[in-house]
């Protein structure tokens, strides 16, 4: 019990002195994770769509060759970035580009670090999302495509209006997964000097030698971020599903029931004019 009280006191002291640093770290982590997840999803959707363009033996060879090439490139991209650690990719790109271009391209200063981190986390997320999106598209019932084709939709229209909205719903849990992984895994970006939440811990612990209290604080911080994220994602899923009930449309201004038809010249069935004619 004494230890616990001491821990809270230590955390209190740390927060008093370094609270701003922790908050800045958290903010940077959030910005990086959100942006990279969004860009990663866009990359993933692009790759997933390119990967599922159908072609048959009857198509011209140029189209087939092009599609095969695109699929090959996407495949290599996915396998390379899924198959290597992100921490290494960060180093590879951050130091590799200046190395190969004789410092013509380099990530200068704070902006450079931000840019490099964004790029690395985004393409990493994209590699995972490419497969998720492909799976999401495949999992939509082929009958949906046939239904769309049968009313004359092109491939692009079918994708845009019928398949992708359903695929997006299917992969939303995957997107959430990736976002939460990104929240935590952006911590490896400290390797190129990015000051996110975990980097704050390193500097604070280095200055105060209070490793455990700082780590405890970080644990709570990360957990708070991920819990809020998963709560928000559940809420979005619910919103997308729409309400489970529907209203019966009994009255619709555009439609007419029998007997309410009005002729432009002769009027309706209950007009006086009609009755006069009946009386003749």
């Amino acid at each position, binding site marked *: 019990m004494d230890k616990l009280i001491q821990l809270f006191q230590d955390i209190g002291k740390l927060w008093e002195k370094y609270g701003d640093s922790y908050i800045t770290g958290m903010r940077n982590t959030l910005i990086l994770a959100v942006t990279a997840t969004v860009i990663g999803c866009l990359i993933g959707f692009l790759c997933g769509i390119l990967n599922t363009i159908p072609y048959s033996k009857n198509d011209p060879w140029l189209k087939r060759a092009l599609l095969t090439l695109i699929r090959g490139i996407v495949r290599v991209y996915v396998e390379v970035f899924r198959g290597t650690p992100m921490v290494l990719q960060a180093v590879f790109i951050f130091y590799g580009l200046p190395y190969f271009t004789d410092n013509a391209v380099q990530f200068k200063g704070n902006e450079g670090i931000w840019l490099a981190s964004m790029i690395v986390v985004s393409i990493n997320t994209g590699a995972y999302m490419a497969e998720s999106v492909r799976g999401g598209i495949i999992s939509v019932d082929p009958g949906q495509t046939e239904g769309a084709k049968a*009313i004359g939709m092109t491939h692009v229209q079918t994708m845009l209006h019928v398949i992708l909205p359903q695929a997006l719903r299917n992969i939303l849990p995957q997107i959430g997964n990736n976002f939460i992984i990104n929240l935590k895994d952006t911590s490896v970006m400290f390797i190129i000097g990015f000051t996110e939440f975990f980097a704050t811990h390193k500097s604070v612990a280095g200055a105060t030698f209070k490793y455990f209290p700082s780590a405890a604080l970080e644990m709570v911080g990360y957990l708070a971020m991920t819990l809020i994220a998963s709560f928000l994602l559940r809420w979005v899923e619910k919103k997308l599903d729409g309400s489970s009930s529907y*209203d019966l449309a009994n009255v619709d201004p555009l439609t007419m029931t029998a007997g309410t038809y009005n002729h432009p010249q002769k009027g309706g069935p209950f007009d006086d004019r009609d009755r006069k004619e009946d009386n003749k």
Partner: protein
Amino acid sequence: MSEMILQVNHLSKSFGKHEVLKDIDFTVNKGDVISVIGASGSGKSTLLRCINLLETPTSGEILYHGTNVADRKVKAHEYRSHVGMVFQSFNLFNNMTVLQNCMIGQVKVLRRSKAEAKEKALYFLEKVGMLPYINAKPRQISGGQKQRVAIARALAMDPEVLLFDEPTSALDPEMVGEVLTVMQNLAQEGMTMLVVTHEMAFARDVSNRVVFMANGVICEQGSPEDVFGNPQRQETKDFLTRFRNA
């Protein structure tokens, strides 16, 4: 003779080595209500899917007002907007309401205005008796209701001919009637229809021509009275006997 809409010449379709359709010839004239009957696996559905180009024919031609649509140069999606199709499994768009299902094709393919599309959709939804359900999602309505919406969706595109691929086979018995009634009304209004069906009563009473298929060929065709009352081929007799006994 009335105007010819579709003419199928020497149509063949193989899946790998399996030849499903062998040298099919037949025509669809304006106002025809044609029932295609036959045992499962005789190629009825494949024939229908070939006509709508959901399957690419292996050889032969499909003439739509004289143009061969099986030719690669013809844009399949343009042709399909003139030929409606109703599927066994409904294939309503799950991410849209009933009303949106009937509007999307009109707006995106026929480039109608939203107001015009809505008016048209409501007109046909009323016709199939689904007007109260325009706000429902497909998963919230029954099979028979889904199929009636699917018919309205196809009709809203103002197709010249409507293809039905076993429209009642996936339905519970008590829902078959509501769909058949809608189809019967359409036939009476002069809609050109090509119906693959196992509903012999419908084939006999509603259609003006019955096509009997067996093993990938058209075995016999003619008026319902001839095919049902006086079948010429042994295959037809066997098939009809089996149906009567079942």
